[in-house]
């Protein structure tokens, strides 16, 4: 399934850009007209005179060998260009994922176990923050924490690990905030639901200590919906990271993808899309494997609902 999705995805990415208007020869020559002999050489080198499927095959073969082509804007290897930016995006998404898992699940469990004022305030805050888009969060965070308070830098990457953490904190929060709210709400609902189940009530009546009760009976059963929503939201961060990178002028894959789409640097667009789709599919696969670990009744390869 993984390989099939990736194959179809790669076909879609290649096919879409193959259909893009514009002549690759004129892109290579920078718009100058070339003598017929040079055109023939270029066509032969880039397999431009061969049928679509053959071209796709050459492209896929190159991709599998780590060769994603040459950027027509920077005249550099796309793989090198991607490699130099991938850690910014990966770091940003990982940081945001940590925030989502720690704060989202933590808040959800607390408010699920303790009905009352804390629970109500969590419900209201998460309802609002779930609707805050990443770019709005970015604007507000820059305004409050970078411009007014000056606690964090507003723009750019850091130089070493510690300054990177400082530079990435606001972007990661902006990226995490709406997913965090959704994860917290789902966690709260499923903890509440599991807490009212008969086996938990029986365990309570038999005097099982609450710490053990929560861990073994409530959280264990609530883990599946929590994993589902955390997995889906974290996977979706991969695409939204582009917005946050642009807002904070981070030198990541997403911002580069947007710039390449604007300058029609198609090899770069293909390469980055492929990397992002692969990451997206792999995260979903990890979630599927987690299902089987969390609930032995789920057979690997089938989808838990």
């Amino acid at each position, binding site marked *: 399934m993984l390989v099939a999705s990736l194959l179809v*995805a790669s076909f879609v990415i290649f096919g879409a850009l193959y259909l893009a208007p514009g002549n690759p020869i004129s892109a290579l020559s920078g718009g100058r007209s070339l003598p017929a002999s040079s055109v023939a050489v270029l066509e032969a080198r880039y397999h431009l005179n061969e049928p679509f499927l053959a071209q796709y095959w050459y492209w896929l073969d190159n991709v599998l060998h780590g060769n994603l082509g040459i950027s027509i804007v920077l005249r550099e290897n796309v793989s090198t260009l991607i490699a130099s930016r991938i850690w910014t995006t990966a770091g940003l998404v990982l940081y945001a994922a940590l925030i989502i898992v720690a704060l989202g699940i933590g808040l959800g469990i607390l408010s699920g176990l303790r009905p009352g004022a804390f629970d109500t305030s969590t419900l209201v805050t998460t309802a609002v923050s779930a609707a805050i888009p990443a770019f709005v969060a970015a604007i507000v965070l820059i305004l409050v924490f970078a*411009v007014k308070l000056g606690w964090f830098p507003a723009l750019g990457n850091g130089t070493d690990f510690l300054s990177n953490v400082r530079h990435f904190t606001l972007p990661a929060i902006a990226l995490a905030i709406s997913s965090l709210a959704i994860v917290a709400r789902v966690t709260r609902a499923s903890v509440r639901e599991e807490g009212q189940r008969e086996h938990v009530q029986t365990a309570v009546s038999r005097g099982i200590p609450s710490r053990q009760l929560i861990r073994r009976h409530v959280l264990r059963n609530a883990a599946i919906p929590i994993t589902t929503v955390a997995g889906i939201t974290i996977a979706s961060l991969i695409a939204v990271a582009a*917005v946050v990178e642009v807002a904070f002028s981070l030198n990541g894959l997403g911002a580069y*993808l947007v710039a390449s789409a604007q300058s029609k640097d198609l090899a770069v667009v293909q390469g980055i899309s492929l990397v992002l789709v692969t990451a997206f599919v792999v995260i979903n696969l990890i979630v599927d494997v987690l299902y089987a670990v969390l609930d032995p009744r789920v057979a690997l390869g089938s989808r838990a609902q």
Partner: protein
Amino acid sequence: MTAAVPVTVRSTTRGARAVGMLRATGPAGIASAIIIAVAIFMAIFGTWLAPFDPITPNLSLAWVGPTGAHLLGYDFEGRDVLSRLIVGARTSMLGPLAVVLGSMIAGALLAVAAAWRGGTLDAFISSGLDVLFAFPGILLAVLAAAVFGAGLTAAAIALSIAYMPYVARVLRGAALKERSQPYVAALEVQGASGPSICLRHLIPNIMPLIVAQATILFGYAMVDLAAISFLGLGVQPPEPNWGVMISENQVGIPQGYPLPALAACVCIVAVVIAFNVLGERLFEQAQAAPR
């Protein structure tokens, strides 16, 4: 559920039913409906309502703060922020509308076809949609911008395709449940054709769910399209649009002029929350409705 149900539903007028549904959503639902109504009103009549020219720049007025006639001040090119917000409602609302219509119509038809025919067609549609799940909406929109050039149309088509699997998955479940109802068997015995049962009975019966989903989807589409315009791949400046306004006025934030960007943020968030609240209430009703 009997065949009589669609008849009783039809006996009340559409308008009265809509009012009844809205009243049942409570004060938060009504407040949301009012926000949405204002946004729709601005989207339709904005060009006539706007007090000042939203497009022509006047650099001598750049970043000037609010005054009596200009309630929200001027933007980075010295244009009236309020006028740009009002006129910008059109592109900001029209884009999500197109996405919702596109993905709901295609998704509903695919879902009903899959649920009705089952078997190979169902497997084919379901696995095709599974592959689409691998493409996040924003990524597909960026791809579309790279291929067809930046613009609202390409972004809206890309998002419609990206949302389709989510729509189809929910509606296929509902259509499957509906397919096993006795009234469908009764209609089949009477000799009604498949498409006619689907279009005249099955789809109208899952309509509350479709409306609820469309409402929630509108909020998502608005966020994604605003993000794409923020990235410079959607609506192109100087055309007014809430997403464009955030990106073009972002430079004002470190310089101490946050109002133009924040005003556009507030518009987007208010409309998105309104659609979310209303959509959730409609979902609850659709699921609680006596079947």
